[in-house]
């Protein structure tokens, strides 16, 4: 999957969880500081990414992701190893 597509789908997922417009989800946005996500929403991101991309994410590593870019990077890696 192209990185651009991953990023687009990641932004869509994040916007869906946080109930904000996709345009508000900047590529370099920090989940907590910029988007106001809380701990529960961080868990929900992981679950939503897994469902969206049909991948399994390591819990500990996934919860360390802080930014949109970080999520894209992580998912790209997971897609490469799990497909």
């Amino acid at each position: 999957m192209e990185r651009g597509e991953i990023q687009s789908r990641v932004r869509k997922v994040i916007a869906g969880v946080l109930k904000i417009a996709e345009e508000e989800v900047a590529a370099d946005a920090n989940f907590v500081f910029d988007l106001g996500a809380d701990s529960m929403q961080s868990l929900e991101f992981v679950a939503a990414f897994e469902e969206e991309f049909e991948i399994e994410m390591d819990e500990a590593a996934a919860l360390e992701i802080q930014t949109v870019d970080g999520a894209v990077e992580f998912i790209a890696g997971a897609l490469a190893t799990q497909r």
Partner: protein
Amino acid sequence: MKSRSLSDSEIATLTTQGCTAEDWRQIQVRDGFDPRRVRKTSFSGPVFLGRLDGSASLPGGGSVPCGLYNSRVHDCTFADNVFVDSVGFAANYDFEEGVIVRNVGALVVEGMSSFANGVGIQIVNEAGGRELPIYDGLSAQIAYLLVMYHHKSRFLRSLEALIQTCTDSKQSHRGRVQRGSRIEDCGRLRNVMIGAAVTVEGALELEEGTIAGCPEDPSYVGVGVVARQFVILSGARVDTGATLERCFVGQGVRIGKQFSAENCAFFANCEGFHSEAVSLFAGPYSVTHHKSTLLIACYVSFFNAGSGTNQSNHMYKLGPLHQGVLERGVKTGSFSYLFWPSRVGAFTSVVGKHYGNIDTADLPFSNLTESNGRSLLTPAMNLLNIGTRRDAEKWVDRDRRRDPDKLDLIHFDLLNPYTVGKMIMGVQVLRGLAEGSTKQQETVVYRGVHIRRLLLKMGIRYYEMGIGLYLGERLAERLEPLCPGATVADIRKAIAPSKSFPRQSKWRDICGLLAPAEKIDEIVESVAEGRIKDLGELQLRLRRIYDSYREYEWDWCIGVMQERLGMTWEKFEPPQLAELIRVGGENAVKLNSILENDAAKEFDEHSHIGYGIDGSREEGKLDFEAVRGSLEGNAFVRKLREDSRRVQSRSSRLLAWLGGLGSS
């Protein structure tokens, strides 16, 4: 004790010193009595006076000669070297050696009294029906059975009879102030039994009560306290304007700062300050510290109430008859609200206001929040919370009880057959909900709460992580002493369950005591059948369960492993055991990593807000580090890392050894 009447010269001395007596012949003294140490004191009724040759220490240093001064005494006995000064009226009391009573309005026993032993308090259900008879040997476990097992009517009748026998024996028309106790600067004390090493200082009014104590763990009742119908146990401290009515205060409890409570019981190491409690059954380590908090009509244990925590137990229908249960380790956030009847699962945090009747007993370690007026539950979330782990470890260190006879039996393990059993139930619940949901659903509904569909899978995963960690840890503990020399036969011997296996059912949390259900049922049956003859024997039986925890726990673990591996324990082979240890070790390290990540949030840039108040960001960072320290330097984080290293090292050793054994 050998006694004699006063001599004429002694009476003359006493009279000269301003003493009067209704009848001097009613006064008996012991050899060594010194009449020079009794001044301006009036006597009536029979009075016994002991030796007076010692001195009493005063606060701030200095001492005064023991004796009776400026007081009025009726029908009292004074053992050796008592100091009594400025007591308005003391009647029907026996004062033991070394007691100090100074500046007290009245200290009297009127009529027969049980000193609150046997007083029934309306607990958990404010409207009644769960009456708890309090007494000075009540443990959290006996209280729990008395309050919660009303469906076992024969048991209840038998247990109440045992308590009646005990409390009948406490009936007396005389009070006692036991050895080494002090009562100073108090108002009126009526029908109050004072145990050993008790200090009552500045209390306004105490009526119908017992204050127990012991030299190892003195208790204290202090300034401004008003208490009626109460029992206070050793090591407890009630002070600074607390108001208690029909209350039980257990060992090591702290109550003060204008806290008021009615029909409540507080067990070991509870703390109540500033706020209000009504019909509260506070199991061990429950704390409420802030104003505007009302805890009403509920059972809690290891509970932490945030400021403004509130509940409703009726809605103007048939009265205040609803009740709540907050299982072990629940925390409520500021101004949280719960609507009874509700039951919240163990180690769940509650934030926001919840207007429905919820029951999340089978979903422990969750986070309950409010979203658009709905109760939203995130299952298993608190397993990942550093605070949960910290709480569980701090309780052990904060046991204040120094009494050699610790009444409340408390197990502290965060993961145990009760909580892990609930997690196993939780997995089933979440799986069922996931199977019944569609991708279009944002949330599913379960017993009064909404759960985000996406989080069902996460909840299952985190519960499984906890279950795997627990089983692996317990197994590794068993096998570690055998590594590396033992054979497969040795392993089977080491993992063999007890003789009572496989009788394993669900576990119960009996107000701090974790126990297999059937062990509790055995005791309940024994009481009902009259085979347990007194409260001492009952407490002993409960203590045996407490002491057998590790054995019962292992039986439970073996039962769960059998279910998971689909075979009986005799058929377990090294590769299967190795897999349990591998999974347990990996989960432990993974969870520690998640917890460290959670702890890191306490030190990140967000946490610097408000620091370096007049300076730059850099100064904010420096100010923060000066006040809060760093993640690297945090003792708890270092402990987590050390734990991960320990687990990894042990897993490696055990796996290498088990790998070399192969299958038998």
